[in-house]
Every structure is written in structure tokens, then in C-alpha cells.
């Protein structure tokens, strides 16, 4: 029995799609349609009661929450990151949770600034969120420059490069005001890793399937 990925292209499930394709394990896609209300359907709520994607169905049962799925894949299959007892596990866990806890929420506030507290607060939240994004991206950029972790490198983008790449892609593409878009070129070490990540044969296959364009991370286009 293989893994089933519940998926809408260029939603957070694209992150898991990239990781699965990179791993080369058997998986199938169960496409969902946002506008048809698939996420609220009883069938999908049986997989994820919160009605959120990504979610995967595995031989051990469903798993959801983007970073939880990525960590589950590393722990189950290895290769895309260090497992318990392997070199780099401590730093990998720290930076995975850093990304999930600080970068991901900053991105959500940046591209959906009306969600925390309505339209009135959106401009203040959007601007503050962009500053938070720059701060978090700078930490990842410095990490790569200083430590060259094998699990976030041009040679092995791991699970973190697709995670960060997709998050920053949306922040670069979606804000209506160009002055408020995230600029990856300010973070050259991170950019180099994301450029390698989007160039793998696996990433190119996913980009074609999900309609992500030729350079999903370094030159995202709507």
C-alpha cells in the first residue's frame, strides 16, 4: 500500500508533493477541488477533521500538518534529512521547527494580512509580517553560509528547501503591491539552495504537473 496525498496544486500540499517525488517512493494523488467544497466533505473530514491540506494517507493511518508530514517522511524513509541518531539531527529538528513556528506564520500573515484581525489591521500586519519574513530568511541564509548543513544544501535540498521554497514563492508572487513582495535575491545563499532544489528532475516533474512555472522558487510567476 502506497501513500495517498490529498492535493490541490500550489497549495501547501505542493510542498509534500515535491518531497514525495524527490524521495521516489510510490504515491498517488487524490486531487481535491477547493471551490467544490471538497475540503469540507465528510469523506475528507474523515482523513483530517480540521479539513486542511496537506494530508497523507499512509499504511499507519492519516498524517496531516505540513511539517509533521515532512518529519514523518524523514523518519520513515531517511535520505531527505537526518533521522534520530544520525549526524545533524539536532540542528535539523531545530531549523525545521524554526521554519514551522516562525517563518510559516510570518508568511501566512504576509499573504493573508486580513485573517488575524480583519481588513482594518491588514496594512499594519502585512508590513510587520514582511519584516518578520526578512528576519527569518536572513537566519536561514546565515545558517547555510556558516554551517553548510548537508540537509539544506544545493546537493541535498532535503525537505526544508521545498518547504521554504514554496512559502517564499507565495510571498514573492501574491502581494498586490510590488514594494511589499518578498525578494529572495537579498538572501544569496538561500537563493542558491532553492535554485538547486527547483532544478532537480523530480522538482521539474512536479512543477509541470502542478503548473508552477520554470523557476517556481527563484522566479515565481502567477
Amino acid at each position, binding site marked *: 500500500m502506497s501513500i495517498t496525498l490529498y492535493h490541490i496544486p500550489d497549495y501547501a500540499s505542493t510542498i509534500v508533493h515535491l518531497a514525495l517525488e524527490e524521495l521516489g517512493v510510490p504515491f498517488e494523488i487524490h486531487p481535491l477541488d477547493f471551490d467544490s467544497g471538497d475540503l469540507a466533505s465528510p469523506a475528507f473530514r474523515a482523513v483530517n477533521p480540521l479539513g486542511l491540506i496537506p494530508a497523507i494517507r499512509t499504511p499507519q493511518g492519516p498524517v496531516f500538518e505540513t511539517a509533521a508530514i515532512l518529519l514523518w517522511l524523514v523518519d520513515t524513509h531517511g535520505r531527505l534529512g537526518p*533521522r*534520530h541518531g544520525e549526524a545533524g539531527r*539536532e540542528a535539523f529538528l*531545530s531549523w525545521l521547527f524554526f521554519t514551522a513556528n516562525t517563518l510559516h506564520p510570518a508568511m501566512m*500573515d504576509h499573504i493573508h494580512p486580513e485573517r*488575524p484581525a480583519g481588513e482594518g489591521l491588514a496594512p499594519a500586519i502585512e508590513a510587520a509580517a514582511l519584516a518578520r519574513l526578512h528576519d527569518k530568511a536572513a537566519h536561514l541564509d546565515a545558517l547555510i553560509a556558516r554551517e553548510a548543513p548537508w540537509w539544506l544544501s544545493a546537493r541535498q535540498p532535503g525537505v526544508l528547501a521545498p518547504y521554504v521554497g514554496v512559502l517564499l514563492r507565495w510571498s514573492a508572487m501574491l502581494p498586490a503591491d510590488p514594494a511589499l513582495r518578498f525578494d529572495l535575491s537579498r538572501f544569496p545563499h538561500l537563493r542558491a539552495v532553492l535554485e538547486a532544489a527547483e532544478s532537480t528532475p523530480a522538482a521539474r516533474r512536479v512543477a509541470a504537473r502542478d503548473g508552477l512555472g520554470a523557476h517556481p522558487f527563484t522566479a515565481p510567476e502567477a
Partner: protein
Amino acid sequence: MLTLHYAPDNASLIVRIVLHELGLPFRTALVDRATRQQDSAAFRALNPAGLIPVLETPQGPLAETAAILLWLAETQGRMAPPPGDPARGPFLQALFFLSNTLHADLRMIFYPRRYAPGAEAALHAAVTDRLRGHYALLEGWAGQGRLGGPQPSVLDIYTAVTLRWAALYAPGGAWFDPAPLPRLMAMAAQLELRASVRAAARAEGLGEAPFTRPRPCQPPEGSATG
């Protein structure tokens, strides 16, 4: 030897309790928030993001509370389902929920100026609404046995400490009501009786009932805030 870089009643408290639960010897190193020691070169060398806690281990430093809890559980084979266990997926999902949703939203309440400068009151109102929803979800998990089971997990300790913060730290105004959360509060009351929590409470000046009757900490060293 493990070293826990801590400040009283910060997220390092969660790690301290778990270290006691696991029976692991450890040293502590105070991060003096009054002098913003978390911005010092020495601390930033351990955690460039400058957040507390950091756990120094023989294999290198760990940052991010949930990462530390997971590493400790994996290293000891306790307080969390191991990789390969069918409960591992739901456990990871819960751990990420606690850290990237519940805890992240609490930080918006604690430090509103970082998230909506000039609009702190409106942010407080909106995020406290979300937080009530998060705690209702956790109360449901307690009803399903995902929290508050016979043996404490790292999820239980993490949740219980946040109950204390929700009651105590609300610069925008008190908002937390334990009345709709009887299962969580019962879990917290049980945890308070454990030797691990009593040791942590003594070390950080948290009083006799740190979760169910929280009061501001009176620590022997350092301070909870800057």
C-alpha cells in the same frame, strides 16, 4: 552533561519539567532577560534567532521548544511514540499544532507590537478569539485521550504550561477562562502533584499550584520578562 539555557517561566520551563520527568541530570544557565542577554554574542552563537530555550547537548545545541522535547523523547524512548509507531503521525501533528499555532498565537498576545504596531488592542481581541478556539480543540483531544492519559507525554507538559501563561501574561487585558476546559484543568491539576513539576516550581518560584492557581513567579535568579 546537558545544559538548559533558561529564563524563569519562559518556554524553558516546559523543557525543565520534561528533563525531571526523564530523570536526566542537567545544569542550568540563566539567560538574564533584564539585560537582554538573549542578544549577547555568546547566546546568539547557540541560537542565532535569540530565543529561549536552548539545550546544549553532547551532539550540539538544540533550539525551539518542540524540537528539544522531541529530541529528548527520542533519545530516551519515553514521553512520545517512536518513529514507526502508528501513533507517531498524530503525535507529530499535535506537537506542531502546539508549537506553530497555539504557542505562536500566544506570542502575538505577549508581544503585540511585533505583529501589529499601532493596532495592538484590535490584534489582542482577534487573537484571543482564536486562542479560545485552540483551547477548545485541545479540550476535545483530552476527551479523546490524546492528552491527559495515564502517562504524561511531552504534549501534556507543553499544554499545561501554556495554561499558566494564558492566565498570567496578557498585556492587552485578561481573557483566559478555564471554565470551558474542565478536562485540561483536571490534567493540569494531576501534573502539579508530580515531583517533576514540584521541582521546577521550586527552582523558578512558581508557587504551589503553578497551572491551576497561577501567580506571578518569584524566581531566585533572573526574571520572566525583560
